[in-house]
């Protein structure tokens, strides 16, 4: 009986894993098939692999992009996602420290709405604010600049870093806090030397989360960039092979795109595996 239970459990988990991985694995396999094999009614299992979709994605498809290659767009995405995540961390560390420290004065009354405001930025449907946003960006000449995107994504990422960090700061034990202050340590030294160091795990858990969300962001980038600051997701949208009617060719193309989205995520997750659950714990408990 225990063997049977164990057996059903293993089979169950295997089926669950297949449902998670199967569709993607299938899509990636299909991206190596010739179009003929792809549209055959019965699935083809043995086939001569083709690299055509990848050539299209990295080289020939670039003709649909305004003077840029897809590799450049990947670089743009990397710059924007990287800088905006780091900027969000740097911007929010002092503010989160204040929120966790100053419980009972004017600041606490003011800091809670601030937390909610940053959270609301991430949660509202993009096109409910996209047009006013575009309007503002046009006025300030920020459209189609990497800086403009980094600015926007930093604000979006604050919604992750602020609550995570303020929660983590408030869990630093009061003994450590008091001992440092008694020894004549000033608040800013305490912040720089002790507090930031002791929430390092939380910083490492929030960073990949912020990075991934910016790496794949499409709606805002779609309306705010045109050529110079195009990111990879917008490029994918532009490079969908005409006549853009989601036929077999587009499917192959999407398969080749999927790899470029999974790889960085897998690398980050494998490097920072033990922080993944922590990120959610922080995000929710606080």
């Amino acid at each position, binding site marked *: 009986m225990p063997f049977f239970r164990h057996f059903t*459990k293993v089979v169950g*988990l295997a089926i*669950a*894993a297949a449902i*998670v*991985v199967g*569709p993607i694995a*299938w*899509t990636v396999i299909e991206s190596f098939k010739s179009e003929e094999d792809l*549209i*055959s*009614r019965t*699935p083809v299992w043995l086939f001569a692999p083709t690299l055509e979709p990848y050539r299209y994605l990295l080289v020939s498809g670039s003709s649909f992009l305004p003077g840029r290659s897809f590799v450049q767009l990947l670089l743009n995405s990397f710059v924007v996602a990287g800088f905006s995540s780091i900027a969000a961390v740097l*911007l929010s560390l*002092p*503010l989160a*420290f204040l929120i966790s420290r*100053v419980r009972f*004065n004017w600041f606490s009354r003011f800091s809670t709405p*601030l937390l*909610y405001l*940053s959270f*609301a930025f991430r*949660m*509202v*449907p993009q*096109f*409910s*604010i*996209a*047009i*006013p946003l575009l*309007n*503002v960006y046009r006025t300030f000449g920020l459209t189609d600049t990497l800086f403009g995107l980094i600015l926007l994504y930093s*604000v979006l990422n604050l919604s992750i870093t*602020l609550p995570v960090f303020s929660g983590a700061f408030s869990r630093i034990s009061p003994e450590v806090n008091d001992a440092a*202050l008694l020894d004549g340590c000033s608040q*800013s030294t305490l912040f720089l030397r002790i507090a930031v160091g002791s929430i390092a795990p939380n910083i490492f858990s929030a960073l990949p989360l912020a990075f*991934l969300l910016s790496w*794949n962001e*499409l*709606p805002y980038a779609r309306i705010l960039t045109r050529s110079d600051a195009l990111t990879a997701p917008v490029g*994918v949208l532009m490079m969908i092979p005409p006549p853009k*009617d*989601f036929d077999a060719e587009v499917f192959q193309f*999407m398969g080749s795109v*999927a790899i470029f*989205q*999974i790889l960085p*995520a*897998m690398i980050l*997750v*494998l490097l920072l*595996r033990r922080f*993944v*659950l922590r990120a*959610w*714990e922080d995000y*929710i*408990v606080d």
Partner: protein
Amino acid sequence: VKVNKKQGSDLLPIQLASIPAIIVVVLAASIILYSALTLSATNAKLSNQPAEFVGVNNFLAATEDHRFIESLLSQALVTTLSVSVEISLGLLLSYEICKSTKRVQSFAIVMLVIPLSISQIVIGSIWVFLFNHAFGLVSYVLNSLSIRTIDLMNDPSAALLLVVLADVWQWTPLVIIIMLAGMRTLQRNIWDAAEIDGASDISFIRRIVVPTLRPFIIIAIVLRILESLKIFELLIPFQGTVSLPNFYIFTQSFHYGELGYASALGLLLFILSSSILIVFLRIRGER
């Protein structure tokens, strides 16, 4: 009291350092809100022709816009179905994962991140093609089991269910991760005690897991409701068969160029989404 006073003055450098973050958030919010309010009261177009003030006419037009109302109804259906499936499936699966060995757990977490790391346009394509009437794998399997399949692209309500399926497939892993984070807070000895007492899985989940994980379940529900209001890229491969509010506003603004009208619709959607958020924050505050 003395220490407190000292702390107050001492914090000045940190307060100065936190000003940029405050400015960015407050300024961005107020400028965007101001711009939204002014735009939605005009008939601004994408082509730079001068906009006229039209008062609340845009909002009145929205109440008579059948396609907008239809997209709201579709949204209600998609949200209800996908969130309820995601939460119950997420709860069951995370419970199974949590009971297994450490190795299975870390393997599962790596697997679960895959759907979350792919953009929704790719996910939409994957499911549209798996169910493709002519050469999709799922259609093939169903056909060979002699189950008749239909062309989803010609059937809006079936296509809506496919949207739900794609959404469930992508986001159940997130719910599982949230629940796993919650289950880590359950003490080991509760599990052992339940096993010794011979509690069945179902009653353990109902009596112990759900009550203790309440805050995690609530946050998962709210995150999922709010995120499902944001469905946009997922619908691109559906080529207009399915329209949800966020997507509809996009079409209004960038296909028809009705920026003024679209910002009015946007404002309505904004109010809907932020009132859900406020209700959630109230619930959380009571905890």
